[in-house]
């Protein structure tokens, strides 16, 4: 492999590696803060939370492996680790779960030589498709949150803190956004921006900030008149400093919990969009696409149910563990349990 190819792969791999690194760094670093250490301790005591974290780290691992790519030679398309390990050649037609691979399997392996989840009506391995769906779900949840959270937090904080005209403007804006049916807005945006992962993330991000914004505004209102904010002011702190240094950290628990829920909600939403035909498009493996294609498969005789079942199952497992985690997080870091 030439140096140029290595570099090419390094560029492609930089984002996933750095994202994973930042996540690990945040967790390790916050462990040293006594406040968060306490929350981690509580989280560690909850079996539900540990289970959810275990499942989610499995999902995260799949996503990570599916994001690292390498290239055999200059002509070959770059493939991810998951592609290398689990991609199976197309079968001629559908086969049931645990069906043996018949095409292209040079050295039949006990598990890898089988289509564990069967193949769909065009002969593609369902297990592989399910695995590919994780990355899309995480990317959509993550990127849309990346769009929605800054909007929600900035607007919510300033509306709650400054009040007056700013508050009015923000409130009117999110009330208007909230009154337009999300689906309509997303479909319009996707049609405008063109189908694809980034445009759908942008569209979902732009429509999903309302709830969080309302929450942040309310919490800011609550904290604005607290004594500690007043004493910070009496000591000469500026507005920006009070907002970022004093109020925001107090809102973090609430924000973290609702972002966890927002994330799973967004992943769920993608399947609905795919079903409506405005999903990420067929270039990406997504559970939404799988469920969408299952529409035809179920009517066949005999019906091909496994495409639908396993994609929904994966979705269920991910969303369920995210929600369980959000619940456990609420118990672990609720400031009301912590103070006094």
């Amino acid at each position: 492999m030439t140096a140029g190819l290595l570099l090419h792969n390094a560029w492609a791999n930089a984002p996933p590696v750095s994202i994973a690194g930042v996540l690990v760094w945040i967790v390790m670093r916050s462990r040293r803060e006594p406040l968060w250490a306490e929350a981690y301790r509580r989280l560690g005591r909850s079996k539900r939370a540990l289970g959810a974290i275990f499942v989610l780290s499995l999902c995260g691992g799949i996503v990570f492996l599916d994001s690292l790519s390498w290239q055999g030679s200059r002509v070959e398309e770059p493939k991810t680790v998951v592609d290398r390990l689990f991609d199976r050649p197309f079968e001629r037609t559908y086969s049931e779960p645990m069906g043996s691979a018949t095409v292209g399997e040079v050295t039949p392996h006990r598990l890898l030589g089988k289509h564990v989840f069967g193949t769909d009506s065009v002969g593609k391995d369902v297990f592989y498709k399910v695995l590919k769906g994780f990355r899309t779900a995480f990317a959509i949840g993550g990127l849309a949150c990346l769009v929605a959270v800054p909007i929600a937090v900035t607007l919510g904080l300033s509306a709650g803190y400054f009040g007056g005209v700013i508050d009015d403007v923000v409130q009117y804006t999110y009330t208007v956004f909230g009154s337009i049916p999300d689906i309509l807005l997303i479909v319009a945006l996707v049609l405008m921006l063109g189908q694809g992962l980034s445009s759908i993330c942008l569209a979902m991000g732009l429509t999903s900030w309302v709830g969080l914004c309302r929450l942040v505004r309310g919490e800011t209102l609550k904290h604005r008149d607290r004594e500690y904010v007043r004493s910070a002011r009496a000591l000469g702190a500026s507005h920006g400093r009070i907002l970022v240094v004093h109020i925001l950290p107090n809102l973090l628990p609430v924000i973290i919990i609702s972002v966890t829920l927002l994330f799973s909600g967004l992943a769920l939403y993608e399947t609905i969009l795919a079903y409506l035909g405005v999903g990420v498009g067929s270039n990406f493996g997504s559970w939404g696409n799988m469920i969408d294609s299952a529409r035809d498969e179920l009517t066949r005789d005999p019906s091909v149910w496994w495409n639908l079942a396993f994609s929904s199952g994966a979705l269920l497992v991910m969303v369920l563990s995210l929600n369980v985690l959000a619940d456990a997080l609420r118990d672990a870091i609720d400031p009301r349990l912590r103070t006094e």
Partner: protein
Amino acid sequence: MIEPVLDVRDLRTYLKTPRGTAWAVDGVSFTLASGKTRALVGESGCGKSMVALSIVQLLPEPAGFVDSGQVLLEGNDLLDLTWNEMRAHRGRDLAMIFQEPMTSLNPVFTIGNQVAEAVAAHGGSKSHARRRALELLERVGIEAPERVHGQYPHELSGGMRQRAMIAMALANRPKVLIADEPTTALDVTVQAQILALIREIQDEMGMAVLLITHDLGVVAEMADDVSVMYAGHVVESGPVRAIFHHPQHPYTRDLLESLPSRQSRGRDLAVIEGVVPGATDWPTGCRYASRCRFRVDACEASGPPMIARDAAEVRCIRVDAIAQSEATR
């Protein structure tokens, strides 16, 4: 006469309430000299906290406004300043400590962090801020400052928290410290310690203290001068000895008589009958008239002016008559 560091002249502050405009502070004047303590005494709702908030301009938003008057800090009128100019004064020249040490500290940061934050609010490096924070914590009598530095507010007792608050207020060696009921929420023993600490630091730094309290015991302990407030204005003002030993305004007399003392042992405590009039419509005449023992019809005709008598100033038209009747009795 020495130039006062803080000179408040005819301060008028109102609050917009659903029931109308409440004149919470209605013409308050006093001066505060360097190194001295002035106590602002009065019952709940008389406007003493509003005076403090008007001085630092942190009135409740959006309801509170300063209407007129002057707040001169070393000759500069603070009321003319913009928000940002005022902010530069807060914490550096004027610092304030509040009543509730339980909630006046940010629950999610360590004590050291918050004291350092107060130091850094007016410039300075991080390492300097940390060193200074430790110094300050030690100065306010916290044992093991290294340990407390890393603790969160909920891990400390009320007294410790108030000490930390004082450390934050002292961070930039203010010229004036405004203490709004600094010991009300504390135990009596802790209260005495905190007051002693404020005195000590005041002597050391030569700062002026404006002490706001309803506790006459605290006033006797701490103050050089006293302004007694009633219904939005000062009714009597003077040196602490004069006020305590020779009160002239009927309200001050009643207030002092309502304190339990050795003489009143076994008897029922004296009570001031009636209630403070509402701040939305003050009576035209003397505001204490409805509760006053010495009331005559002239009292309710027009508002009494401040009259200088002996070392003090009194807002009562009958001050001489009352003194005479006392003397003859």
